Every structure is written in C-alpha cells, then in structure tokens.
C-alpha cells in the first residue's frame, strides 16, 4: 500500500466531525429513540400519505416508546416515491428546501428527493466522517468523478470532501484521458467514483502509459453499485491504492449512509442519522443482528423528506461485535446483491454478482461482461458476453479455446446452470460513465 508524507504525519482516521462514531452504545440508543420519535411525529404531521398509512393500522406516533417498536411502523417502498411524484412526501415547505435531486428514471417518472439546509449539513457531516474513516484529511487532493447533477453522487462527495478540508477536483464523470492527466498533474491522492468507472480508468491509464502505482493516489472511495472483494483485490493490485466501499442511496440521503474504515470489516452505518434494520424480505419480519436479510433504513434527522422504514432491497447483515477501530456505530456486511436483481433462469436463482465471482476465478481476468437473457422454444437461455482484454488474448487458437472452456467451467460451477459464454471484441459492450448495465433481459413472458 502506498503512503505519503501527509498520511504519515496526519491524524489517523479521525476528524472533529467523527466524534459521534464513538458514542457509548447506551447513549447512542437513547439519542436514536429520541430522534425516531421526533421524525415519526414530523412525518405524521407533515406527510399526508404517511399519516394515512398510520391511520389505516391505527397507530399514533406517541405509541412508539422504544427502538424495538420501530417494527410497528409501516414500510416505505420505492413506488411510494413514484406515486407521490414530485413533492408528495415532502415534510418541509419549498421555502425551506435548498436542494432537489432526482433519479435518472429510465422507466416512467423519476423519484425526487429534497434537502433543507440542515439536511445538507447532516449529509456533509456523514461524508466527512466517511472520508475521515478512510484516512483522508485536510491536505489531501480528492478527485470527485461521480456524475454531478441530479445524481446525488457528485455533489454529495463534493460537499463531504470540502467539509473535510481537502482540496476538491470536481471532474465529474467522463473524459477518462483528462481524468488521468489531472490525477497525475495535480498529484491527486484520493478518488471518489463507481468501482466500474475506476476499472475503466485503470485500463485507460495502462493504454496511456501511465502507471497508477507511481502516482500519489493512495485511496479510492467507491460506491453507487455493488462490488466484490475480488474486485477490490484486483483494483488494489493494479493501482496500488486502498479501496473503500461507501454505501448510500438517494432516497435516504445519497452516498454516506455507511462506509468502510481502514479495517475493511464491513461498512459503519452512521446510525445516529440512519437507523438500520434487517428484515426477512418475504415476510417483512425483523431479523436479529447477524442474520442476513433486506436492509431497511429510517432517517432519524431528515427534515425535508423523512423516510420511515425504507426498504432498500439490498441484502446484507448487521454485523455483531465491535470493529477494531473502536467505533461504536454498527456495521453492515458488504452488499453483494439486491433482492430485486435476482434473476430466475430455468427456475434457478442467479445473481449478477455470481457471474463476476466466476469470471474472477479465472486468473488475471476482470473483463467487462454482460448477461443476455433470451427465451428459445420456451426455454430460458443465459449468455455471458465477455470482452477479450489484451491480457486474456493469445495468438494461439488452442489457448483461446482453453480460456473459453475455463470461463464456461467456472460459470457452470458457480451458477449451477449451463450458460453460453461468448468471447467478444474489446469495447463492444456498452459502457456507462456511472453504473454498468450488467443484464439485458429479452425474455418476454
């Protein structure tokens, strides 16, 4: 791992804003209950659809007298945000709103989220805590390569990095050559972007003859899509940086709901602001810490748009035990899959992340890939299209057939179903600057 003088002389992984990370547990629970009661009351008073749902089940805010009783509250789901487009779930009048963000909305209406000045301050503070936990601080030069705009990634990371006191290079997404040139010329020490975009930058740097290992860049804070530990190993080996997983979603606040610390043992949830629960995604019943299920989050301090028991669809575990870093805030396991990106192929459950795991088993390859689903004569067919990188390419047909066979074998083993592997030319699978489109489903039911 690379180090530089700032890291060696600077504070370990702390910032004055990080103090809440270390709140004694009893005190933290008391604070959470106090904030939960306030946010439920606020939503009940200000958000008509929430009040209607509470009335339906005959529940009043003052009946929530302990944290466990959060389970009595109704869930909020993504379609609630769509159904109340654009401002139906706001708890603040527009005069108090200072920012609006929206999802890209590929189908139908986007979802809209709002922030008051206080909300933006909270968002900034959790990102400061996240970045400080990654060992970043004043004096660092942080390149923000998340898209700036309606997407929460760019502006969120920007405010956080500025709040930390770092120098921000707001490159936004795109223009990989320029990103690499600035990274090199400015002596950038950390980058925030999606893991797939960073993989793209690694590839492009090689093509440009830039050795990332020689640059001052020492940390990457990657989020907005699920990625695996094998991908982390690959990124770290190729670029010499330390790669951190950051978690967030616009519905809750944006990036900064949780983040890894330097121990990389799960993501600390800034639970003084975002209360985590794990539920059984089939029954909706709460599950104890340590059990895997769907992550549900409640915003404890959000003003403009409180989210009560928002179902994230992300599958994870609340980890038990304390992290070696000493933070008392709980951690969740890294998110490998979402309850709604599960594919059912010929009756077998398949997650796109399993395909990545299989591809990574073949030494030295982390190619771009895409899953194509079709239906032939009533039977589901799954094709995994894999781009041939220069590292994988060999001028001997036998070696290419061997690679093909190895990929096929690894996929069959991991997925448990027969899939077709197609080796395709480099740069023929569509890239997006943000999240990768991993699945194309052409099955018509």
């Amino acid at each position, binding site marked *: 791992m690379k180090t530089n003088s700032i890291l060696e002389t600077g504070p370990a992984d702390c910032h004055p804003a990080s103090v809440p990370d270390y709140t004694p547990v009893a005190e933290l629970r008391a604070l959470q209950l106090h904030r939960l009661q306030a946010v439920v009351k606020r939503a009940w008073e200000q958000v008509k659809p929430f009040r209607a749902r509470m009335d339906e089940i005959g529940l009043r805010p003052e009946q929530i007298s302990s944290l466990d009783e959060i389970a009595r509250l109704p869930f909020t789901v993504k379609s609630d945000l769509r159904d109340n487009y654009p401002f139906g779930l706001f708890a603040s009048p527009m005069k108090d709103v200072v920012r609006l963000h929206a999802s890209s909305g590929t189908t139908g209406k986007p979802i809209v989220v709002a922030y008051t000045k206080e909300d933006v301050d909270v968002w900034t503070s959790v990102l400061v805590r996240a970045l400080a936990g990654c060992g970043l601080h004043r004096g660092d030069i942080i390149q923000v390569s998340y898209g700036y705009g309606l997407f929460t990634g760019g502006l969120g990371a920007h405010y956080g990095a500025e709040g930390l006191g770092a120098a921000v290079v707001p490159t936004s997404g795109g223009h990989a050559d320029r990103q690499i040139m600035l990274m090199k010329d400015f002596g950038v020490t950390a980058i925030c972007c999606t893991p797939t975009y960073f993989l793209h930058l690694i590839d492009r740097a090689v093509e440009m003859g830039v050795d990332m290992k020689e640059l001052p860049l020492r940390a990457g804070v990657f989020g907005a899509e699920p990625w695996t530990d094998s991908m982390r190993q690959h990124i770290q080996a190729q670029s010499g940086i330390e790669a951190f997983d950051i978690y967030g979603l616009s519905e809750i606040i944006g990036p900064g709901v949780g983040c890894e610390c330097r121990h990389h043992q799960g993501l600390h949830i800034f639970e003084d602001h975002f209360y985590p629960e794990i539920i059984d995604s089939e029954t909706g019943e709460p599950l104890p810490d340590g059990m895997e299920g769907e992550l549900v989050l409640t915003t404890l301090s959000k003003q403009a748009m409180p989210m009560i028991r928002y179902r994230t669809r992300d599958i994870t575990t609340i980890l038990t035990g304390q992290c070696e870093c000493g933070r008392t805030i709980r951690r969740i396991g890294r998110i490998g899959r979402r309850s709604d990106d599960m594919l059912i192929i010929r009756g077998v459950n398949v997650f796109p992340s399993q395909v990545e795991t299989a591809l990574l088993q073949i030494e030295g390859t982390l190619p771009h890939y895409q899953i194509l689903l079709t239906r032939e004569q009533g039977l589901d067919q799954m094709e995994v299209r894999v781009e041939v990188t220069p590292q994988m390419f060999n*001028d*001997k047909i036998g070696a290419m057939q061997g690679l093909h066979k190895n990929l096929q074998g690894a996929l069959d083993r991991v997925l448990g179903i027969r899939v077709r592997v197609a080796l395709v030319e480099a740069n023929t699978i569509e890239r997006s600057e943000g999240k990768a489109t991993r699945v194309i489903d052409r099955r018509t039911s």
Partner: protein
Amino acid sequence: MKIQQLSLFAENKPGHIAAPARLLAQEGIDLRALFLADTEEYGILRMIVKDWPKAAALLEAHGFTAKVTEVLAVEVADRPGGLAEVLGAIEGSGINIEYMYAFPYLRGDQAILIFRFNDPDAAIERLQAAGINLLASEELLK
C-alpha cells in the same frame, strides 16, 4: 532471428475484419503476410507488417485487442519438397509447431514459412545446424 507478428482478436461475424483493415490502410501500413485462424465464433488474424510498433499502437488506440508475438521466418526453395526439408530438420527433436503459414517471397523463387514453435530457441539451433536460412526482421521486411 525472431520476427514480430501482430495478432488481432475478431469475432467471426461479417465485417469484423474490415474495420481494422481500413484503419491500417488509412495509415498506409503495408501487410506483408496475413493468416486467419478461426473457430465458429471468433478468429485470430495474424499479420506480418513492416511498421509493427505503429500498427500495434494504432489498433490498441482504436480499442482493438491486439498482441505482438515473436515467430520465426524460414526461407525455403519454392519447389516440391521445400517444406519437407524444413520439417525434417526438427523431426525427432520434440519441438512442436504451434502453428505455421506460408507465403511466396517477393523476390526470386523462395517462399517464406512463418512458424510459432513451442521452443523457438531450440528450433533456431536445429534449423541453423541443418543449413536452413532464418530471415531477420530487416531482411524480411525490407
């Protein structure tokens, strides 16, 4: 003694070789020899070109998957038995031919055989001992 060959990965679909060919043509890169190895789904286009560093950089910059490998160029008499003589020189040595292709020399009555051996150094030794002429890159591409 070794010469550089440029290999390119291409899907076995109509038009997939046209784009790289056009690119090389635009930059005035002359193909000296060309061989396509193919399977049902994809192929490997192997090329001997004069300015291979430029061609490799060009293909890479345009997003093609290309690789430079070292092969041997053997000069043989362009007459019946020419190939058999060369193969005779390595017979019984355990050296394996991974692939080969041939093209007529532009000058005289010689043909050129391009070989990828599993052990090129041993092959060079055997061939030279048998008095067979291996062409250096400058000779082949002049």
